[in-house]
């Protein structure tokens, strides 16, 4: 049980971002910028907790920052019909530069090892990890059992029909991006306040990109995205165990292990995947 709680905890940042990104992609937008959303969430969550001593306030700020960055993307991707991959990349660069600059301004150019208050946990479980599991189920129900879910999914499949049915594709996509941004921010905040209790320059280290892969891995289904994140998280924890055994093999092999597994699974299930038909296609409303 404790073992599972540990894996869940280390996998939670990726899982949260992946659940959020699932909704975003279902609405027809691919948001590469969740890496930046996580990093900004991690930084501002740490900064808030450092200043106030309250990790919960930090988590809240992390979520808000994630939403704001996602809305910035939404302006360009949804309203201005810009290329989603380019905008996402720009948002990532913005987040890296912004957090690095502010980190240096606040804590000195040479950096500091920071130790901030972490969110409380019992037996390795805490509110965020439990919430992650519940959230995956709730998002699944919302996507499959509600009118909002149907409308959002249709915006990702055939947006013309969504508009014809009286919905605004733009509003649905804004909503999905904001939700995805909130979860990316939460994932980042949990990384700095739930796991590390610290912050380092660019500490998300590609977890946002892994989350995007987990969406595909999970076949655009939130519960499967969570399970995929757990599987990769478990393999990731194995690699350290392998390394401590002192086998005569380059450690890079072990570090690459989770990605190797992801690649193999994707190669197996990738064909005929139920990707949203209108994914990454800006929707121009006809007049």
């Amino acid at each position, binding site marked *: 049980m404790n073992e599972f709680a540990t894996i869940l905890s280390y996998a939670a940042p990726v899982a949260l971002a992946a659940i959020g990104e699932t909704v975003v992609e279902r609405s027809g937008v691919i948001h590469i910028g969740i890496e930046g959303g996580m990093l900004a969430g991690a930084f501002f969550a740490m900064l808030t907790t450092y200043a106030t001593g309250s990790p919960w306030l930090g988590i809240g700020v992390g979520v808000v920052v994630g939403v704001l960055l996602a809305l910035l993307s939404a302006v360009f991707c949804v309203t201005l019909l810009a290329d989603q991959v380019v905008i996402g990349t720009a948002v990532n660069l913005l987040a890296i530069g912004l957090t690095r600059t502010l980190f240096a301004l606040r804590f000195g*150019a040479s950096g500091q090892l920071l130790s901030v208050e972490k969110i409380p946990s019992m037996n390795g479980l805490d509110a965020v990890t439990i919430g992650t599991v519940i959230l995956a189920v709730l998002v699944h129900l919302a996507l499959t059992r509600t009118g909002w879910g149907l409308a959002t999914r249709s915006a990702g499949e055939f947006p013309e029909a969504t508009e014809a049915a009286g919905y605004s594709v733009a509003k649905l996509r804004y909503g999905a991006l904001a939700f995805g941004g909130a979860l990316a921010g939460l994932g980042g905040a949990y990384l700095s306040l739930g796991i590390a209790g610290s912050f380092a320059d660019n500490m998300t280290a590609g977890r946002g990109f892994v989350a995007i892969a987990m969406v595909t891995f999970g076949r655009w289904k939130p519960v499967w995205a969570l399970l995929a994140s757990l599987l990769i998280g478990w393999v990731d924890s194995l690699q350290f165990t392998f390394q401590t055994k002192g086998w005569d093999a380059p450690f890079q092999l072990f570090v690459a292990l989770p990605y190797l597994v992801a690649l193999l699974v994707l190669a197996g299930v990738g064909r005929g995947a139920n990707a949203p038909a209108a994914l990454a296609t800006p929707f121009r409303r006809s007049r």
Partner: protein
Amino acid sequence: MNQRAFLLSALAALVLIGCSAPAGKPSGEAPKEEPFKVALLTPGPVSDAGWSAMAYEGLMAIKDELGAEVNNQEAGGTQIKDAMRSYARQGYKLIFGHGFEYNEPGMEVGKDFPDTVFVSSSGGQTATNVGAFRFYLEQGFYLAGAMAGKMSKSGVVGMVGGDDVPSIRSTFKAFRAGVLAANPNAKVQEVFTGNGQDPAKAKQATEQMIAAGADFVIHQANAAAQGVFDACKEKGAYAFGANADQNANPSGAVIASAIIVGKPAFVALAKQVKEGTFKGGIALMGMDKGAIDFVVNPAMAAKVPADVTAYVDELRKQIVDGKLTVPKDEF
């Protein structure tokens, strides 16, 4: 569409602001007489609270004590030569590359700029205007290993590395030698996370190391080190600080630190260059020169048995006197 163009350019501006590093400003208006200019190239961000931060603090000491005009940037791989040439063209007199990988480019660029001195942290080649100084941090790691080997109850100790680079491998080798000298039956575990900026990974690696029996852990994880310390605190193991004196870390898990005293070495080097007495060559900066130290955390000194303190002090004396040569890799 006007609005769209405006917003796009606004984003472009934001990205530009975001990308600009907080480093010193490039030399703006040309002053009357040429000031003494020193540049630093680092393999990673200087905010790593470790390896690159140490060099940055050295650079700041050069600025404060010699009144030099300084600048620094991150440069790796193919960027190194470009960065060196651009500094040399701007009249920088000393260009310091913080790593062995700056030695070879220094040799090449140095031929074209005989009036500029190129110095790297370690590296084997030298010319009249190219040199290296190598911090013998292995000595500090050896003493940490000796202490861990004597004090470990489980007989298992661990090392957590961030990036896999030869300088880190070399310190780990010395730590291992120190442990085995103190306790030939000890087991030394080694884990690399592949990232010195990821405290979550470092923490996970350390937790697993402790679960496998380690009760002393040393790190070479730069900014990710907090993860190592926190894991040690939560699971009840001792940690060693590295590069800088990390004894005061709020985790309270750091029993001692193997440190580089970099500032004097940087200032002395810059002084040589400024006065024109630099002749090239490779300097080994060890405990005998006061550039390396091993400091026990005063708050935890009571936890170190007297015989262990005596043992470590004896080894330290042998190292300073040159009777004991700590193993190190050449790179």
